[in-house]
């Protein structure tokens, strides 16, 4: 699932344990996603091991964990599909970027977009849900850009630093994602490699 020459998504495995462990201990992970500062390192470790545990090939997994990795910088973040229902063809999605500098970068948007393609095209899902806290604007904007609809507004739903914040429930159906994909596909057509080369050649020819 490569999306640039050097960055790709892959299934998380046991060798990623220490990386994921360090992310889950990050206060931002607990603030934006879940977890509790009171968890001991052993509890966090057990949770990660459970996440990375292998299931036999003939069992449909209830969760899929994808790592965003770059050749130069190693693992950058994680995208997880949880509560996968093969009957309803649905799941919920969580996204975490370990490097704070990259959290508002194009990398996140493209990673989420590619992960959604994987969920709809490869896993054949029909619906993807996300529960995102209102203060996490960067995250819910990305889901809106991918075509997700804000279906739920849960007032005063999550406590952070002694304050109660709203939470938003997003839903993205396969046909909505396809519509966005078509729209952006059309927009990006003129940005293809051939047109870039043609543009550069033209510039070179016109230059004195």
């Amino acid at each position: 699932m490569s999306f640039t020459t050097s960055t790709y998504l892959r299934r998380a495995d046991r060798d990623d344990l220490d990386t994921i462990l360090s992310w889950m201990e990050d206060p931002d992970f607990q603030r934006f996603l879940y977890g509790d500062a009171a968890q001991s390192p052993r509890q966090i470790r057990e949770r990660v091991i459970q996440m990375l545990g292998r299931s036999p090939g003939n069992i449909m997994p209830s969760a899929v964990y994808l790592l965003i990795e770059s050749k130069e910088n190693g693992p950058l973040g994680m995208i997880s599909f949880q509560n996968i229902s093969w009957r309803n063809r649905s799941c919920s999605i969580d996204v975490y970027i370990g490097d704070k500098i990259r959290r508002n970068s194009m990398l996140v948007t493209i990673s989420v977009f590619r992960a959604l393609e994987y969920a709809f095209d490869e896993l054949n899902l029909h619906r993807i849900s996300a529960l995102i806290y209102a203060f996490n604007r960067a995250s819910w904007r990305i889901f809106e850009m991918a075509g997700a609809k804000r279906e739920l507004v849960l007032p005063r739903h999550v406590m952070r630093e002694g304050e109660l914040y709203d939470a938003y429930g997003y839903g993205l159906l396969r046909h909505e994602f396809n519509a966005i994909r078509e729209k952006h596909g059309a927009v990006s057509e003129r940005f293809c490699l051939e047109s870039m080369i043609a543009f550069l050649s033209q510039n070179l020819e016109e230059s004195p």
Partner: protein
Amino acid sequence: MIIGTHTVLRFSEPEDAHFYRELYLQGGAKAALLDNRREFGAPTLQEIRELLKKSESTRAFLFTVEDPEGRLRGWCGLRALNIEAAFCELFVVFDAPEEYAGPMADETLDALLDRAFNRLGLQKVLATCLDSEETLHACLLRHGFQSCGVQRDVLYGKEGWRSLDTLALDRATHTSNPATGPGPGATAP
């Protein structure tokens, strides 16, 4: 036991498992009985008994609804308690959809809301219902719940896709609305 004019509420017991299984088997999918993947299953008696033995029933948040003659009529409770944000989810399932329009449902909801707001000190109660559960939806609205939104295509069944409405009732709305106050005749001996 919480004894009302039309209803008797008592903590769930493993012996109620047969009745609860009937609730799963009859009358189609119910939001209250979906699992965390929003799947409507067909649990065995053993699985239901184990559920009843788990923490929520021992913490006394699961109740069986009986009519005054002692017949089992419904299952209800408070679950997914969030202490930090002071909310929980209320669920109620009756053996017949028409019960949601009657006094049995009103007394049951009054007792659950009293427990949530007055005994547990919560600030908000959530509830869910499928678009096929019109009588439950009307019952929740009657008790002051307001929709927080509808999640589309959540459940697939023989009738196609079903959507799920999530409703909320906050403490201020509950206390300010006389219709949502404690039901007449409800006593806890």
